[in-house]
């Protein structure tokens, strides 16, 4: 039986006081060491990550591939930890988070029609985008999976942190229709909406995300929804730096047409997948659904192809092996 240690530490009233005094950086270092220990001493960890190791190794060689897989394990554990700890660490948001490109969001909101932040599902600290921006003072709504799941609800728990709204799109289709209308109302009130787009293994070729690993496609339905909402879309990625900080990077707004979203967001997403593949949490799902890699070399997106000034990926992110 799994003992929910993290939940216990951060939700038990007496232990919360202890958790509040912990330094996030120190806890991150411990988490790194623990991940290394699990990697070398707990066979299940290495076994479960074997497909991911093979994936990284195919591109980067044995040693670098293994290091990348260890980074991936460290990241997965830290993502989980941070979501539990946010209820006591939200007051230390300045130590935990860095936001780059915030002026772009502020500029987009000046038009008065709201703004949509689009992230990649299961990539980076995607679930931290709404909490971080809410703590920063933005009125933000998350469009996503239900919060009603008890484990997810318990993960955030009670605490002194700024709340965000949540629109749950799961349910019968009339519920979905009403939620979309609520989404429009949120945008009409000049709120920020955060949504994430899924990667699919099959779709029309125009939706393809070029990367070195597998044939992946953006979800056409999300793109159709964005086009109909007609609000500029700001690609947003929540990465991680060497000290465990969440680095929230907001990119230039993209006009809401399907072609520009596919091209603009697709290029940025592909660049992140190429440079920081360890921050993707869906490799096992992707690898299960792709029995063999595609033949031939898939063209990579050079990082410099993201044309707008300031649209480069922060160089401090992703490399964890120093810890």
């Amino acid at each position, binding site marked *: 039986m799994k003992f929910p240690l993290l939940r216990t530490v951060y939700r038990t009233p007496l232990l919360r006081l202890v958790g509040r005094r912990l330094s996030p950086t120190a806890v991150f270092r411990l988490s790194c060491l623990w991940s290394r220990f699990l990697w070398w001493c707990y066979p299940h960890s290495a076994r479960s990550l074997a497909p991911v190791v093979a994936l990284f190794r195919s591109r980067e060689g044995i040693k670098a591939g293994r290091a990348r897989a260890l980074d991936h394990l460290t990241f997965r554990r830290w993502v989980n930890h941070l979501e539990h700890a946010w209820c006591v660490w939200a007051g230390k948001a300045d130590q935990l988070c860095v936001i780059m490109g915030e002026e772009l969001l502020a500029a987009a909101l000046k038009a008065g029609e709201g703004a949509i932040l689009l992230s990649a599902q299961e990539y980076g600290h995607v679930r931290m985008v709404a909490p971080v921006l809410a703590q920063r003072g933005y009125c933000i709504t998350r469009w996503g999976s239900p919060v009603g799941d008890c484990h997810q609800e318990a993960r955030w728990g009670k605490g002194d942190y700024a709340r965000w709204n949540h629109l749950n799109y799961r349910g019968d289709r009339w519920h979905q229709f009403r939620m979309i209308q609520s989404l429009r109302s949120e945008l009409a009130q000049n709120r920020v909406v955060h949504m994430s787009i899924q990667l699919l293994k099959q779709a029309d070729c125009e939706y393809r995300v070029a990367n070195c690993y597998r044939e992946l496609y953006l979800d056409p*339905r999300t793109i159709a929804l964005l086009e109909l909402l007609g609000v500029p879309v700001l690609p947003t990625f929540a990465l991680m730096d060497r000290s465990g900080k969440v680095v929230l990077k907001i990119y230039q707004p993209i006009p809401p047409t399907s072609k520009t979203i596919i091209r603009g967001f697709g290029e940025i997403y592909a660049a992140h997948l190429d440079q920081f593949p360890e921050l993707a949490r869906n490799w096992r799902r992707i690898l299960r659904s792709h029995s063999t890699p595609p033949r031939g070399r898939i063209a990579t997106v050079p990082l410099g192809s993201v044309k707008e000034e300031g649209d480069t990926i922060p160089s401090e992110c992703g490399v964890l092996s120093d810890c």
Partner: protein
Amino acid sequence: MAWIVGRLLGQAPSAGAVSEALVISEDGNFDSIKALELILHIEREFNIRIDDRDIRAENFRTLDRLVQFVEAKLVGHGELLMLMLAVSLSLIG
């Protein structure tokens, strides 16, 4: 109606009259994207606002019901304008 038949249901608008009993929302292709297109079209064409609570199966089941729903919104919109005008005049007077 031609827009609904052609765009939403994917049927060629025929030369004859469209049946008011034509089913919209029970069509298997009537998904959230098509629903949003329909709502946006109605709001633009008739200059009305559809609330969350108006989005129910009975309002969108057939063309006939949809027409009744839009007419009710228009009447309510008109009444609201008349009320606002009356209040403004009373304040001025």
